[in-house]
């Protein structure tokens, strides 16, 4: 009887799980089965055991049939619900079942800087030649907990991501691989120090060149939160997991233009989940992950031990592969090839002991492979690629330029530097020697004719800056062509008078005379006022944004943006001069899909980094506006975060100077990656910088934020940016920043 009662309980659990996946009892015969189950449960002790056995068996058969049908036709939204189920396995289950033993670092359970991020030093067992070997790894990942409130559903606070970064660096010091487990619906969108966006950016920036093998596994990959620990040499994904740019509910609220607090229709959420291409199969096809780990039907739960065995094998195999690809020995390569050919069917333990230690050359190869892997991501997801001949010519030109700039800056400049150093040393020595000889004479001379101290001393003067707006009157904003007045938003606070539009957008450069509030201006104004006249040379103009996921209706909206802006993407990349200083600029602007970043924008940005690197120019990212990652491109958009950060890191590491200037509104993915990682970030007055907008914050955290939460002033207070510039002084300030930040290393260290 006890056995039957347990079986009945299991049936009830399975039925509840099924109804959770299907979001109700309407599908199939769930309602009928539930009714049968309840009747059986109520009359359990009234019936004969044989009858109960028959009824339980028929229930089990019915359930099995439904589960099989459900698994066959799982929709993306159903996968999302599987992932969100409290029965799903979590990181603690993995630590318990995949690794031999582990010690949690940086806090334990609830007593923790952020219980939603778990870092642990763990041992994994390898069996080879009938012997057991343990290998150390650092395990870092989000912990959703099974209904534990303090875990915050795996939504990490900025300090949780900071903790992850700290232990990544520990792993680097110890030279052990890192296994990342991604279980997050997204990062907790708060700006408190170190700041959601800024911390994710720092994580990604560090991970680009972390000198140990990085393996990640995605179960629930919610955009920026996932990227904070997602950049890796090998990306695994669970077959029932999801990896997305935004939650389907969030996408539906945007697509359906649902007002805050309004109900989003379930059908719209379903169709958005479909359009976002969030499943493991979709992501494998898109190239954003490397391999899928097959789960049990309807997803692995916390007690599916066969899955943990498979997972253990997969993470070891992935680590082996990453390590082997860096080795130069042929035997290892052959073994690696065998692994590749064997595909997913092989489930044996690797039979040889592979050391995960890497020497300097292997680390170099590891980093090169990582760089190449991310550089290639989403390569086919934009338009406007050059034809073969043009591309050949381009390559030829690039190689010639490379040779020229290497000769000019690496060889000539280093020679010049050495010669200068020698002259400096010799002149310094000779002056000391000469001083010793002439000292008695000069003392006597001073005694007779006393010098007045400091009278003829020439003070060092800063370089000729010239007038910042010497030709500022040549361009007037089209906004000025209206005969009316506008009210400054600060008029109540500071008593600002109404401003006459032709004055405001003409002479005042869109700045309130009284309080200094900056009204938004079009990006063309900056092109004209920031850069030297006739110095602009735009490049990669033809690379165009596309619709790689064939999102319905998006093609039309894209064409509309192209028609309106006469441009093909939301980014302009150009070479220009600022008061004589040659720089490369990438400019995200608002008119084109609100400055969102997709594959085309990411590619253009990465190419701009490469150009700046090639030509040894300082690199400026001027962000007129960015609304984040373009959701219509799904994870192809998300991978632009690591891709562009990789390009930035390589540029900075090679000696470049990277400056970011934010204007108007800069939010989400780009700030949380290739912009936020800059060492020098500035903002134009009255701009807003942040991770998520006020609505998302209200909906995620459940509490309201002050109206100036994202203001540049508050960003400065939190230490996210280094300064706030007046638009009218942009040119002068930028020139000064290039000199102070770059100095003698302006054209490379």
């Amino acid at each position, binding site marked *: 009887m006890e056995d039957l009662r347990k079986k009945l309980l299991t049936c009830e659990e399975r039925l509840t799980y099924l109804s959770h996946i299907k979001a109700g009892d309407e599908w199939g015969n769930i309602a009928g089965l539930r009714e049968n189950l309840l009747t059986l449960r109520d009359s359990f002790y009234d019936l004969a055991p044989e009858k109960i056995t028959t009824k339980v068996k028929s229930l089990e058969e019915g359930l099995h049939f439904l589960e099989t049908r459900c698994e066959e036709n799982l929709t993306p939204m159903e996968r999302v619900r599987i992932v969100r189920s409290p029965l799903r396995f979590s990181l603690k289950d993995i630590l318990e079942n995949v690794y031999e033993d582990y010690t949690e670092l940086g806090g334990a359970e609830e007593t923790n800087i952020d219980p939603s991020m778990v870092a642990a030093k763990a041992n994994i067992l390898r069996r080879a030649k009938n012997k057991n070997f343990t290998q150390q790894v650092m395990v870092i990942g989000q912990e959703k907990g099974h209904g534990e409130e303090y875990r915050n559903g795996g939504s990490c606070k900025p300090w949780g991501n900071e903790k992850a970064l700290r232990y990544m660096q520990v792993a680097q010091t110890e030279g052990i691989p890192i296994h990342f487990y991604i279980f997050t619906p997204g990062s907790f969108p708060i700006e408190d120090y170190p700041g959601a966006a800024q911390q994710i950016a720092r994580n990604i920036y560090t991970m680009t060149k972390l000198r140990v093998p990085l393996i990640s596994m995605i179960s629930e990959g919610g955009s920026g939160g996932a990227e904070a620990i997602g950049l890796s040499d090998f990306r695994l994904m669970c077959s029932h997991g999801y990896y997305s740019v935004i939650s389907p509910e969030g996408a539906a609220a945007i697509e359906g233009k649902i007002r805050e607090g309004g109900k989003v229709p379930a059908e719209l959420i379903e169709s958005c989940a479909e359009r976002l291409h969030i499943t493991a199969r979709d992501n494998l096809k898109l190239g954003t992950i490397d391999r899928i780990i097959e789960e049990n039907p309807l997803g692995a739960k916390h007690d599916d031990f066969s899955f943990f065995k498979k997972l253990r094998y997969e993470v070891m195999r992935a680590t082996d592969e990453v390590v082997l690809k860096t080795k130069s020995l042929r035997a290892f390569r052959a073994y690696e090839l065998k692994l590749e050919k064997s595909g997913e069917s092989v489930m044996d333990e690797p039979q040889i002991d592979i050391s995960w230690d890497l020497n300097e050359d292997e680390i170099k190869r590891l980093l090169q492979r990582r760089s190449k892997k991310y550089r290639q991501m989403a390569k086919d997801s934009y338009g406007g690629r050059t034809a073969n001949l043009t591309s050949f010519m381009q390559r030829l030109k690039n190689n010639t330029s490379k040779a020229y700039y290497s000769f000019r800056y690496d060889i000539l400049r280093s020679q010049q530097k050495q010669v200068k150093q020698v002259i400096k040393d010799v002149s310094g020595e000779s002056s000391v020697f000469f001083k010793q000889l002439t000292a008695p004479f000069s003392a006597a001379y001073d005694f007779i004719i006393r010098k007045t101290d400091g009278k003829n001393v020439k003070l060092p003067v800063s370089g000729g800056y010239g007038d910042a707006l010497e030709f500022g009157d040549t361009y007037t904003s089209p906004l000025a062509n209206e005969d009316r*007045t506008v009210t400054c938003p600060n008029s109540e606070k500071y008593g600002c008078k*109404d401003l006459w539009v032709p004055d405001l957008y003409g002479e005042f450069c869109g700045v309130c005379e009284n309080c200094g509030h900056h009204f938004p201006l079009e990006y063309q104004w900056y092109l004209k006022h920031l850069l030297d006249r006739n110095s602009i040379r735009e490049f990669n103009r033809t690379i165009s944004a596309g619709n790689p996921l064939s999102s319905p209706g998006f093609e039309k909206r894209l064409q509309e943006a192209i028609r309106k802006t006469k441009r093909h993407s939301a980014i302009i990349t150009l070479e220009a001069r600022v008061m004589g200083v040659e720089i490369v600029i990438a400019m995200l602007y608002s008119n084109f899909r609100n400055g969102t970043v997709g594959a085309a924008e990411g590619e253009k940005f990465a190419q701009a980094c490469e150009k700046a690197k090639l030509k040894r120019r300082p690199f400026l990212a001027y962000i007129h506006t960015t609304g984040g990652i373009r959701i219509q491109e799904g994870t192809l958009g998300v991978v632009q975060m690591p891709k562009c950060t990789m390009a930035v890191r390589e540029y900075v590491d090679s000696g470049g100077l990277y400056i970011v200037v934010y204007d108007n509104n800069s939010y989400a993915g780009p700030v949380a990656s290739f912009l936020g990682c800059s060492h020098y970030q500035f903002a134009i007055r009255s701009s807003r910088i942040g991770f998520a907008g006020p609505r998302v914050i209200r909906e995620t955290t459940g509490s309201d934020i002050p109206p100036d939460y994202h203001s540049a002033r508050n960003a400065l207070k939190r230490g996210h940016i280094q300064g706030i510039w007046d638009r009218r002084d942009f040119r002068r300030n930028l020139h000064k920043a290039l000199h102070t930040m770059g100095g003698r290393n302006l054209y490379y260290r």
Partner: protein
Amino acid sequence: MDDSYVNEILAQYRADPYGYVDSHTIHTGSINFYVKKDEKVEGVSGEWRHISGTKLYSLHREGNDKPVFSRSSGIVSSIRTDLEGKFVEAGEKVITIRYPLKKREIIEKILRRVLVPFKAPERAKYFFSLDIQSRIDKFGHRSVAVKPGDEILTMSLMKRDTPIYYQGEPGIIHSVYFQPGITMEQDEPLIGICPAEKLPVIQKVINRVKAEWE
């Protein structure tokens, strides 16, 4: 005498238990109203007073339609509908919002009439002097009498403590408006002093307001 004084004050508020907020035009322009007489309006709300109230009227000048919102909740008690669509001068009273006074507001108004405020001489943090603080701790602040020349407060500014001596009418400390360690702006009242003889009367008024007002 006491009772008649108390009754006089109470009768005043009972006859007209409302507060009034006038809205004057901030500049010239043609005016358009968005509310009617006796209509209920909402005031500024939100944790940071960031949600504007009901739109009362708009002033149109030089192509700029400037909306004016209600600052307090209440009822439109008077409105110059005769000016609808017409040009108005700056400073013209166009709308009055009437709102029922709460107990707290009435008590505050009464206290404002009778208490002598002692204002902050600088923008700084304030503490009671040790002597006064120990008496307050022992007997409560309404039992502490002060007279001109007494050292009553310590002003903490830029890590330097300066004693502040009381100047004004002698009396007892009736109300304390500051919190130790919180910066107070210059000229904000720090304490309200009540002449000793007026204290029972004030207490009586307050008690009656608390008891009788709804």
